[in-house]
């Protein structure tokens, strides 16, 4: 039995340490430690409700808009306010822009560089992969950074800037568009589509989204091996990434873009309605203390307790009906019954390959609908609705960040924020054990992984396949 500590993990957006025990070179148990605590839930207490829109985006520089939308939704619910139609469309566009930029950043900057490591030098695909994806020097990075920066010009028009905009409000958006700006946006979306069709897929987006089975995907790969998606699929097949990092196979999506991707829980091919009341957080193995070890978010506490016996992470352990779930693009696409992802997951479950495929598929699925949202904006109609803020109220905001389900639970008393709890996507995916000893999603996904090299490269693939955002995780 060997015990190892791995850290720091980079290319995970924030701080992460993984400990594991292995027997005969195979992981038998793992412990995931989110090693930074900042205390945003405490910062918010006592603030004026609308200030949540200033503080919460700053939880995270990569999910900033998602945090903003969750806070705006929680406030809107507290106010009983429905955003204007234009406000909803613009919010969809800004959130989709961030989510797709994150998918791109994840694939090129965070995930693929691990396949350019020396450990793979003897692989037939190595030199092409290293030339294309090597960290910082790979040939892909120049064009990807340019495409990403120009894609985020959408936020320059709609949100002032990215990250950390204050344009998304409970009633919609602070930035009304003029007619020519709507056309400018359409051109930016088309320009990004052209980049995806030239570099990522070397195919039309609609051709990619029509793929519906593993066989069709393999045939497509053979014909598109010069695309970056094709390059990934090739090495995923060779390395059998679909047999690596299988998780709980229980998937949660809050639903995205006004339920364009629906809400639900996917278990073994069945889609169940989400019962929000069944969401709890457990602090048994967190450096936290509270009256109740397991609490619904409206009753959750954030009291750090360093040196607590048996604890090993600042992250709390969210559970749905007492069970561990996985969240992310794969969950969104399963709950949306997307044929390809459903087919792949039914064959091999949630794993390194299917998580990454789901993310790239979303790039192809969401850009076309963004074109439609943009066309649907009615110039001259209102972008922001207004209502007074009640002194006493509660509200929940539930959105899909790039990396999965994000929830804000807000309580107002005497006109101030009395209580605020946040459960972020990676809180779900990288949670520690709960009071029953159930390991979190990543902890489960790591069990059974062979560790053959000093860098434990397979552990790195599994960790990064979740696209973790550690700064959101603990907040």
């Amino acid at each position: 039995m060997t015990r190892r500590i791995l850290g720091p993990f980079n290319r995970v957006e924030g701080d992460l340490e993984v400990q594991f025990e292995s027997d005969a070179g195979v992981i038998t148990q793992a412990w995931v430690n989110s090693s930074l605590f900042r205390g945003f839930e405490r910062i918010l207490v006592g603030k004026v409700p609308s200030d949540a829109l200033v503080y919460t985006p700053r939880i995270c520089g990569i999910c900033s808009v998602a945090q903003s939308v969750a806070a705006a939704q929680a406030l809107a619910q507290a106010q009983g306010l429905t955003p204007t139609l234009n406000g909803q469309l613009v919010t969809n566009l800004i959130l989709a822009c961030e989510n797709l930029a994150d998918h791109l950043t994840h694939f090129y900057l965070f995930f693929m560089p691990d396949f350019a490591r020396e450990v793979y030098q003897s692989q037939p695909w190595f030199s092409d992969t290293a030339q294309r994806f090597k960290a910082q020097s790979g040939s892909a990075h120049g064009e990807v950074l340019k495409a990403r920066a120009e894609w985020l010009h959408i936020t320059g028009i709609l949100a002032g800037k990215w990250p950390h905009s204050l344009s998304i409000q409970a009633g919609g958006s602070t930035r009304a568009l003029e007619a020519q700006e709507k056309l400018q946006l359409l051109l930016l979306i088309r320009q990004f589509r052209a980049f995806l069709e030239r570099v990522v897929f070397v195919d039309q987006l609609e051709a990619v989204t029509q793929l519906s089975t593993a066989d069709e995907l393999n045939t497509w790969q053979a014909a598109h091996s010069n695309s970056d998606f094709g390059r990934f699929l090739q090495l995923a097949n060779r390395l059998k990434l679909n047999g690596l990092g299988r998780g709980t196979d229980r998937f949660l999506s809050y639903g995205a873009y006004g339920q364009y991707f629906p809400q639900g829980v996917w278990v073994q091919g069945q889609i169940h309605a989400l019962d929000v009341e069944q969401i709890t957080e457990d602090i048994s193995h967190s450096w936290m203390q509270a009256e109740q070890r397991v609490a619904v978010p409206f009753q959750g506490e954030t009291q750090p307790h360093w040196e607590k016996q048996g604890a090993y992470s600042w992250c709390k352990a969210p559970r749905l009906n007492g069970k561990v779930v996985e969240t992310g693009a794969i969950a969104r696409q399963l709950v949306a019954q997307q044929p390809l992802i459903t087919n792949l997951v039914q064959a091999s479950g949630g794993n390194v390959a299917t998580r990454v495929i789901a993310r790239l598929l979303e790039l192809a699925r969401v850009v076309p609908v963004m074109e439609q949202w943009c066309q649907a904006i009615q110039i001259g109609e209102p972008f922001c609705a207004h209502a007074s803020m009640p002194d006493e109220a509660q509200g929940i905001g539930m959105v899909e960040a790039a990396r999965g389900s994000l929830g804000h639970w807000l309580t107002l008393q005497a006109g101030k924020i009395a209580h605020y709890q946040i459960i972020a996507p990676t809180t779900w995916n990288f949670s520690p054990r709960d009071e029953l000893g159930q390991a979190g999603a990543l902890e489960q996904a790591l069990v059974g992984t062979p560790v053959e090299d000093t860098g434990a490269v397979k552990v790195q693939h599994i960790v990064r396949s979740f696209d973790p955002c550690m700064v959101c995780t603990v907040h």
Partner: protein
Amino acid sequence: MNILWLQSGSCGGCSMSLLNAEVPSLYELFKLADLNLLWHPSLSEASHQEFLDLLQAVLTDEIPLDILCLEGSVICGPKGSGAFHQLAGTQQSMLHWLKLLTAKAQYVVAVGSCAAFGGITAAGENIAEATGLQYDGALLGSVLDANWRSKAGFPVINIAGCPTHPAWVTNTLVQISMNALRLEDLDEFHRPRSYTNHLVHHGCPRNEFYEYKASAGKPADLGCMMEHCGCLGTQARADCNTHLWNGSGSCLRGGYPCINCTAPAFEQIKHAFGVTPKIAGIPIGLPSDMPKAWFVALASLSKAATPERVRTNAVVEQISIPPSSKNRGRK
């Protein structure tokens, strides 16, 4: 020049913003300015032991450290231990590592208001005991004391902002790498004057509304946001409206007020962001170098002279009355 980039009590947003650099893009700029990124948490290959070996090589002077960038507040809690942020894989606090590494650097750069002054993480009760590297809010002297200087003789260079504009960071790094940064290029809070010699107010597209004190009353209104909506652009030190964000943006252009995010302790305001506190109907926090009586006199005069077009457009989302031309007919 070698750059080592670390994050502590950070959201990572200044790095994400830096990736928005255009013409040249970030990687092109590094090449052009002869900057060698030893390690960055989002961009580098090295993980785990590879990275810890690199830190050791810096501490033993095997690898020269020209520029140490810190993004995020220094986390000192609980009770000064720094245990709220352990550098993963080391069982030591980041606070501990920062004390060692800052001693090795020719230049230390605090990227963002968190690393500079404490920033958002230091808001409210500041349970994390978050602070800036050399400032705690506006007070000089923090983890590094007031007289601390890096090997090149500089205090911590505070590229404040929440987040930082990519050009503020790239311009400063290029100045350092070309040996063009002088002490007098830093302002009274050790921020680069390259952007803090300007005000957010400069180039604000709402300037006509400001001139006439035609004010926005609610989010999304087109008018000036100073009188009612908490805008601090007339005091805030930055060039946001002359060097735009993400192509064509800025907070004001996005329809929301400047919250003065480059200032120390901007997060500690005593009222709501987005609401202007007033005494006897007069906003407190007028432009910093304008006599109050003058401001009040000018404001009442200009309010009286406000054209109908400006008055109307100030309180709507989209231009209701366009400007007209005086001489429509031919001579």
